[in-house]
Structure formats: C-alpha cells, structure tokens
C-alpha cells in the first residue's frame, strides 16, 4: 500500500545474524517488509527463511542455544532491545505454524485464549463477539458455529489451520507470520487459506514462508529469496519471478535446483 506514493515500511531489519550454538544460520539480513502487503520468503530447505520469520516475534528465544544479533525495527522500536516486552510484541505479531497446532481445548477456548491472556474482553458478551469476528474473518464461522464447545482437535486439517489463523487474529495483531501454513493441507484447503490470506492483508501485514513457488506467486506482492542463510534477492513478486537479477534466484525459480 502506498501513501502519497511512498511505500509504508512495517518491519525494517538491519544486519540480522542468527547463530545456533556456534553455527551461523543467517548472515547479515537486510529486509524491509511493506505494510498491508503479503511478503513471501522462498528458498530451499535449511536456507534460514523460517529462522528469519521466527526472529520477527522473537520465537527464537524459546530455543536455548539460539542467539540473534542486529536490529529488527517495528513501529520505530528495535524488538531485539532489552527493553522490549515479548508479551506485547507477540500480541502485535501473530504466528501460524506449519502443522496446525490447535490447543487440546474447545474451539471457543482456542480463540478466547489470546484475548484472555491480554485482558481484551471485559465480559462474556465481549468475548463471544471476539470469538465470532475472529472465526468469521478466518472463514470458519459457518462451519463451526454450532459446535463451538467441541474440541478444536476434532476438526479437519484445513479447518484446524483456519482455527489457528482465527486464534492468531483474535488479538488483532498488526503482523501475521505464517510458516508454511499449507504444507500439511490438501489442495482444496490450501486454496481456502490462500483466499483468506488475500482477505487478511487489508487489516494485517503478512509474511509467509513457503516451499511452493506457485503459492508465492499467487498470494504475495513482495518476495525474498534466501539461500544458505543469505538473502540473495528481494523485491516485488512480479520482478522476482519474471525478471530476477541474480542467477541463483533464476535457477531456483525455474526449478534448476532446490
């Protein structure tokens, strides 16, 4: 989205290095993410795209041996700074994982989990409303409205993933990170999620890691290509797919390696 012809940058990463123990996984990543756009991160397995994604909501903190260097600036604030409150950060930046991971609770409780933690609803009615809007936004409401109090784990794979998306948007995040959200799903469920992503970008900035080139081309406006821990090339999806500057990018996109 452009305002006065200037691209609005939501996330600005500067010189990001990531280490797992002694092994360096990411080298000097400089990548800007545009607001209210879908940015796809592509690259062969083990290239560091998921690691980069997990830097953006500090999920790498969970891994003991992982260290992150460099600056990641979101809303003029460096999230790697000591003063950053991870709880607030993750409220602003939601995440959807590769395998659907609904909590072993009811559908309702899955959605109300985040709002409860962050104290977003004052009454039962407010919570009901949050649950309903989130499920509607995730295009799941019609399918589950009659069984909100049944376990979320009883849904089909595609429904579970949409439940996870609904869970992520329940706290109204500014950014949603998606780590290969369709890799465990069939083509029909994938198409539903892709449609949903397109819908969600009105209100959220979306970053999606994907192995499917076709998916990146379908859903994203910007694309970054990672290889061996380095960001080889990034730019508009059109340009990356039709007219890449780097030979490696071209080789990967045309399926010559990876």
């Amino acid at each position, binding site marked *: 989205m452009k305002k006065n012809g200037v691209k609005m940058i939501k996330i600005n990463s500067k010189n990001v290095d990531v280490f797992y123990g002694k092994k360096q996984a990411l080298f000097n990543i400089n990548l800007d993410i545009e607001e209210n756009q879908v940015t796809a991160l592509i690259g062969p397995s083990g290239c560091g795209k998921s690691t980069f994604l997990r830097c953006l*909501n500090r*999920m790498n903190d*969970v891994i*003991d041996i992982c260290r992150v260097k460099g600056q990641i600036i979101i809303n003029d604030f460096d999230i790697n700074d000591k003063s950053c409150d*991870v*709880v*607030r*950060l*993750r*409220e602003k930046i*939601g*995440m959807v*994982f590769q*395998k659907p*991971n*609904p*909590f*072993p*609770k009811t559908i309702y409780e899955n959605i109300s*989990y*985040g709002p409860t*933690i*962050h104290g977003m609803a004052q009454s039962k009615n407010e919570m009901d409303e949050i649950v309903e809007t989130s499920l509607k936004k995730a295009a799941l409401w019609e399918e589950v409205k009659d069984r909100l109090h049944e*376990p979320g*784990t009883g849904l089909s794979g595609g429904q579970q993933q949409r439940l*996870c998306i609904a*869970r*992520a948007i329940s*706290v109204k995040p500014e950014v949603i990170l998606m780590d290969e959200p369709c890799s465990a799903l069939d083509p029909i469920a994938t198409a539903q999620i892709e449609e949903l992503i397109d819908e969600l970008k009105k209100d959220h900035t979306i970053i999606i890691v994907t192995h499917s080139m076709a998916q990146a081309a379908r859903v994203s406006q910007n694309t970054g290509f990672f290889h061996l821990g380095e960001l080889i090339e990034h730019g508009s999806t059109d340009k990356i797919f039709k007219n890449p500057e780097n030979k490696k990018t071209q080789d990967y996109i045309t399926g010559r390696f990876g």
Partner: protein
Amino acid sequence: MNLILFTFIVLLGFTSYYFGRRKAYTIQSTNKRLTALPQFYGYYLAIWCAIPAFIIFSLWAIFEPTIVKLLILSDYSNQGYLDDELNLIYEKTKALSRGQFTGEITPFIEASAEKYLSLRSIAQSSKVVIVLSIIIASVAYAYKKISSNSRTREPVEKFLKVVLFTASLAAILTTVGIVFSLIFQTIDFFKVIPLFDFVFGTHWYPAKAFVRDSSEALDPTMYSDTFGAVPIFAGTFFIAFIAMCVAIPIGLMSGIYLAEYASVKVRQYAKPLIEILAGIPTVVYGFFAALTVGPFLKEIGNSMGLDVSAESALAAGGVMGIMIIPFISSLSDDVITSVPQSLRDGSYAMGATKSETIKKVIFPAALPGIVGSILLGVSRAIGETMIVVMASGLAANLTLNPLESTSTITAQIVVILIGDQAFGDPKTQAAFALGMSLFLVTLCLNIVALRVVKKYREKYE
C-alpha cells in the same frame, strides 16, 4: 544327571541349528532360491529338537513319581494299611533312600528303599535313552525333510508367538491364582466373622485370638469385637492422605521444573538424583522415619507443649510422601515432556508467558498422565508396609490426630502373620481378608483412574 542331560540337549539344539543352516547354504550353493534366510532353517531344526525334549521332560516329571509310588506300594497292598499309612511308608522309604531317615528302620522299609533306588535308576537311564533317541529321530526327520522350497519361516514365527504367549499367560495365571487363594481364605474367614462386624466394627484387636487353645472348638461369639476393620482402614487412608499431601505438591512442582524450566545440564544431573530416592529400600525409609523423624517431631511437639507420640502417623506419612516424590516427579516430567513442542510454540506465539502456557495448555494436555502418576503414588502409599510397621505403631487406634499412632492394613497383616500361625484359624484368615480388601481398594482406584483419564483426556494430534 538331569543337568548333564539338559546341557547335552542344549548342545544338541545348537548343533541342529548349525546343521540346518549348513544344509540351507548347501542348497543355496546349487543356485536354488531358498524360501527363507538360512538361519530360519537352523531355527527350524532347533525347534524340532526342543519341542520333543520339552514334551518328554514334562511327561516324565508328571508320571514318574506316581508310577514309582504305585510300584513300591504294590508290595504293601492287601495288608490292610490305610491310605495315610501308605503315604507315611512311602515318605519313610524316600527319606531312607536319601539317608535322611532317623527313625526305626524295619526290614520292610529297607527293602522298599532299595527297590525305590533301583526303580529310580532304571527310570533315569530309560529317560536318557528315550529322550535322546526321540530327539535325534525328530531332528533327523526334519533334516531330511527340509529342501529349497520347504516352509521354515512360518513354523519358526509361530513357535516364537507361542513362546511369547506362554510367557504372558504365566503372568496372568499367577495373578488369577493369587486372587483365588485370597478369595477362598477370605470366604472361610467370613464364615466365622460376620461381614458386618468386619466392615463396620470399630475395634481391631487380633491379639485376643491368640488366647484360643486350638484343641477347643471354634466359638464365633468369642471373636465379637475383635476384627472390626474400621480403625485400620481409617489409618491406612489417613496415612496415605498425609503422604500424598507431601508427595503431590513437591513431586508435581519438581516434575514441572524439570520438564519446563531446568536447563539441559541441570536436568541431566537432577533427574537421576531424584530417582535415587526411588532406589532407597523402604526399610531404610522405615528406620529413618522411626529413629530420626519420629523422635524429632516428638521433641518439637513437646517443646510446643503438644503431646506427640514417638510413633506418629505424621512421621510415617511424611516419610512415605518423600518416598513417593520421585514416582510422581519422574512420571509427570515424562508426561509433560511428551506434550508436543508445537503446543508450547502456539501458546508462546500468542504472547503467553511460561507460567500461563504451563497452567493453561501444557498442564491440561498432560493431565491424564499426571492423574495416572498420582494414582500410582496413592496405590504405593496404600500398599506400603515397612515404613508404617516401623514408624507408625501397631496399635489400631481410631483417630484423626496425626500426632497419635495409628496402624494400617499392611502393618496388621504383618502383625498377624509374623511368628506361629495356624491355618484355618480366623486370626490367620483375617490377614487374607485384609489382603483381599486391600486388593479391592486398589482395583477400584485403578478403575476410577481409568474412567477419569478417559473422560478428561484432552487429545492432542
């Protein structure tokens, strides 16, 4: 002799394995495809060696003594002996043949003993001959039979299945046997003591039953007010309750710490250290409770002006709780660790803190396993014997004061069965009745646990 024969048969088994495999290799070298790997041919022959040997040994063990006895006692038939007397004669004969008979030796018995020895040696040598010849015949038959397309894999697999089945059957049958022995003695007990008196009586004083002279006729009325089990049931549950009050919080919290907070290094050392607690023999806990904790509590209590018995329920229950900590902590640690990382990630990504994640996601997901570990702890507490015998006293007081001494089902069984016992005496049978009730209690606990776990299971995946 039997040992040598057995060793020889085992060697024969190995040899037939070797021959079977060699024959398979020979077949293979003629470029014929085998239906199974060569070792299956070997196992096949070994089975043909083992099964006949096993059958003959079992038949021999069953029938040899009976036949020998019949032959010996045939000399005494038509002499008007009673069955009991014949048995006595046979036992005397056997003892004499072993050189262990100390009584008066009559010529009759001496002759029988000699006959017995000769019969035994005939039996022994014929056993060797029969076993070896049958084994060799069966192995030879099987050896001739195997060819490139004979089915050796299926019989071997079937044999393994039967062996494994027998093993599990042995365990199950033993359990059933134990339960039946409990049932019959318990029924006998309740023929003398009314069930009502046992279940609702509040006075347990089995020492009263010592007084009876076994030659006197059994008079049920003298046992009224002797076998009222309420005090010891109450004591059992009371001490178990104290133990669980110690074990559940400490065990659970240390389990959660180990699984969620401890670094890999701390966990590596802390977990085995906690599990050492589980390796301490309960008798050591027992004298720790009786000689260290009990007097210590008494001293503290006295200094505060409380009347504390040196053998208090608190000391026994507390130490028992410490004993149960490792069960709960180790099991709940395993259960919590096995909750998939993806659930933690999902919760953290929502902005939940560690303690919120544990409380709201991990704990509910792990709950069935945790309940299981707690119930395991409870049944340990109810079944624990040594600590209560040593630390909590043997007098069955009906009290809910943790500073007084009480007694438990297990401790009373020990009291009853220590020293001389007469079978068929209500005092001895009382132990079986107690054992049976203990068994029923644990059974109910397990059933309830299973139901609870099934109902509240939050399935992940």
